[in-house]
């Protein structure tokens, strides 16, 4: 049995926590508001008229005016912004000018596709990138190090568009090892439509929950190539950063001490040194994940992947501002959310940050 804590001793601990939470919320709100404001202004500055995207070539001036009115574009810009923010606070992200569906529904449809792809790509990047970086750092200048650096360099410099198409041509077109573009083959896409209840919108998870393993396998065969391509870029970045963090760490005095004491080399590298680069590594991984979550428009185009990047880009070209703003809010929240998540991780892995 524990004794109830002394109320006096709680207060000083509770306050900083509450203040911490409030601070995070204020930061979140300020970030999102700033993001929205900038996006809104950009949307007004670009010389594309959203009304034209809706009414087409042949519309008369009267029809143009009617459409403009119904879109609320006749109001002053600040008023449009205020209305937008007010609605967004209640969860209403408006209606897409182009698809005529609520933006929230569109995002519910497109974001899970990106989330699924980005997560898998990041997992691939981490699993391959960290060991590669660590190994390269242990033997700088060796053949292995050169290979890791070369692979990283190629990853940095190859256009993703080209790599995606070549990957498709080889693994899908010629070898037939993987499923083609899109999240599912046509037949399975229709089965998914009819037989699988939507829970998360992520096909791998929803089909697993429903026990639809045939569709799951098909989805896996489709996602593996785009995830591999994005994972390659993620790996290139993570391995380079890991290498440089580790090189720095391995030159520290405590490492020399550990070695002099006769500690096995693998323990020096994988336990002592790697533990100390955890914090910057988390930052690198989270950043790379967040970037992937914005949606990669080129990869999504090549692989006909109905994700957020393609959605926002298509919307931008027709000045579909509700859709662009809705997408921006989601991307902003992802960034802020992942930042908070990495803060929590720091505290777990690094006692000094607690």
């Amino acid at each position, binding site marked *: 049995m524990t004794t109830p804590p002394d109320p006096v001793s709680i207060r000083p601990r509770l306050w900083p926590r509450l203040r911490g939470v409030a601070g995070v919320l204020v930061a979140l709100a300020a970030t999102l508001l700033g993001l929205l404001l900038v996006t809104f202004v950009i949307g007004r500055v670009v010389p594309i008229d959203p009304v034209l995207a809706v009414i087409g*070539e042949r519309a008369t001036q009267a029809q143009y005016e009617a459409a403009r009115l119904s879109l609320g574009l006749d109001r002053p810009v600040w008023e449009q912004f205020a209305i937008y923010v007010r609605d967004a606070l209640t969860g209403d992200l408006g209606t897409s000018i182009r698809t005529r569906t609520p933006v929230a529904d569109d995002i519910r449809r497109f974001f899970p596709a990106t989330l699924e792809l980005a997560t898998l790509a990041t997992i691939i990047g981490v699993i391959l990138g960290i060991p590669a970086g660590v190994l390269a750092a242990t033997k700088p200048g060796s053949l292995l190090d050169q290979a890791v650096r070369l692979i990283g360099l190629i990853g940095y410099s190859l256009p993703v568009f080209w790599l995606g198409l070549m990957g498709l041509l080889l693994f*899908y077109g010629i070898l037939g090892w993987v499923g083609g573009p899109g999240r599912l083959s046509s037949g399975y896409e229709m089965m998914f439509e009819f037989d699988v209840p939507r829970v998360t919108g992520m096909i791998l998870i929803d089909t697993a929950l429903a026990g639809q393993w045939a569709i799951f396998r098909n989805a896996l065969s489709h996602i593996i190539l785009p995830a591999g391509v994005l994972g390659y870029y993620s790996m290139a970045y993570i391995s380079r950063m890991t290498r440089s963090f580790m090189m720095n760490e391995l030159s520290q005095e405590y490492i020399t001490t550990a070695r002099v004491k006769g500690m096995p080399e693998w323990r020096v590298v994988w336990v002592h040194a790697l533990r100390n680069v955890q914090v910057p590594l988390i930052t690198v991984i989270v950043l790379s994940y967040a970037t992937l979550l914005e949606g990669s428009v080129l990869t999504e185009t090549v692989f006909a992947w109905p994700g957020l990047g393609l959605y926002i880009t298509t919307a931008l070209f027709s000045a579909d501002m509700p859709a662009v703003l809705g997408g921006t809010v989601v991307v902003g929240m992802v960034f802020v959310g992942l930042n908070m998540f990495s803060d929590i991780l720091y505290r777990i892995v690094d006692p000094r940050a607690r």
Partner: protein
Amino acid sequence: MLLDSTLRNRGAALAAALMLGTSPVALGAATPDDTLVIAAKIDDIVSIDPAEAFEFNGIDLLNNLYDTLVELDPERPGELVPGLAESWDVSEDGLTFTFTMREGVTFASGNPVRAEDAAFSLQRVIKLNRTPSFILTQFGFTPDNVDDLIVADGNTLRMTIDRPLAPSFVYNCLTALVAAIVDKETVMANEVDGDMGYEWMKANSAGTGAYVLQSYRPSESYLLEAREGHWRGDANLRRVFLRHIPEPSTQRLMLEAGDIDIARDLTPVDVEGMAGNDDVVITDDVGGYIAYIAINGQHETLAHPAVLDAMRWLIDYEGMANSFLKGQQMVHQHFLPRGYLGALEETPYSLDVERAQEILAEAGIETPINATLSVRNSQDRMEMAQSIQNTFAQAGINIELSVGAGAEVLGEYRARQHEITLQAWGPDYPDPHTNASTFAMNPDNSPDAGLTGILAWRNAWDPEDLHEMAEAAVMERDTDARRAMYEEIQRRHRDDSPFIAMFQSIDQTGMRANVQGFHTGGAIDNATYWLATK
């Protein structure tokens, strides 16, 4: 999307069929036997409501969900055949049209098709007043008078127009999907705040077509299911699944792998790359788009008749068509696309720099002339613009390119703010008036008139007597005389207007070799899925 139990059962049946029918590759490469799988770039679709849709991909979809009173025969381009109206007639004075409805036809809902549905459908278009409504307002309908002018009377529909137009023109307009007949009971059951079902029709269909819309995800896919007992005879394939595949080379890969049956947006490079592949067949259809440049009449030097004339001789039509436009565009120098009544195939203009220089010198025009050419940022348009920039410069017309997104260039054009603009125009209904009314007519050229939908107005050009000639042509009841009138209008327009028509589009469609009976509709009609087999 919520699914009822019948759909779930269909899904199970489909699953079973797939397990048995597909190849052991297990990646599901083959398309299901009873489904036509099409890849196309469909992010242009703004609406799937017949009263509002105006983009090609949206119209192609509607053509398979709805029927019209009068139809075009998909197998004999341009030929009118009875649709939901069994027969029709026009009064002596040419003002009253009577359509007798086909008996025994039902909507997908099971409701019978009545003259009342037909009247409602046309009235709805006028009252909603969206972009394509102009196709019907040409007959003098307004939201106020349409209830009196379009009347259901038992099994017949009576339509009274405001002036004696050529009956063929009226029938041609009625084949456009804006005149599709919708299910009044179903649409009105879904009305919200007096919107005549507008909200509901964004994602649903209520027609008599060979197919019913099963699901529609904007910029992603649509799935159609064939109706049983369709009045025209049932569709050959039970389902049509169209996937939004934005990248042409991706479409090509999927076609070659057998993951899709039809690819609709191949580039000449893709087509060439598939030569020798026996599993794939490429069909060429003339498309309806006319690529042209237009010169703003407010620019005194550029709009000088001699400068316009010189420009016609400064475009390398053949050079472009035989190089980067090969397979995509053919030389075409008139505003009516091949396939239309009165279309002309002659090509009197070619690149002739000396002649252009002479024309400019004779008229005493001082060179160099500086001008801006506005062009949208798509590859083929940019290449055309660069070719024009190159050849114009040879006679001292220096062009600066102004590149922008499609809506941006269009916005500038509609506001009469361009100098020279490179554009493409697609017809809206299968009658020559569709292009004559915009290229060669302009009822009021004043800036305040704001006739932004009319190309002649956008270029601040008064066609003078061509306007009257076009008006006379749309009233002419004799088809041969009507053809001759459009031929004359086009020749004069070609030689004496601020428009320079250059090319007509070609649609190249890639199909698996086992696919038969798929019609794109070419320049005149829209895609038909119900005749396709595989």
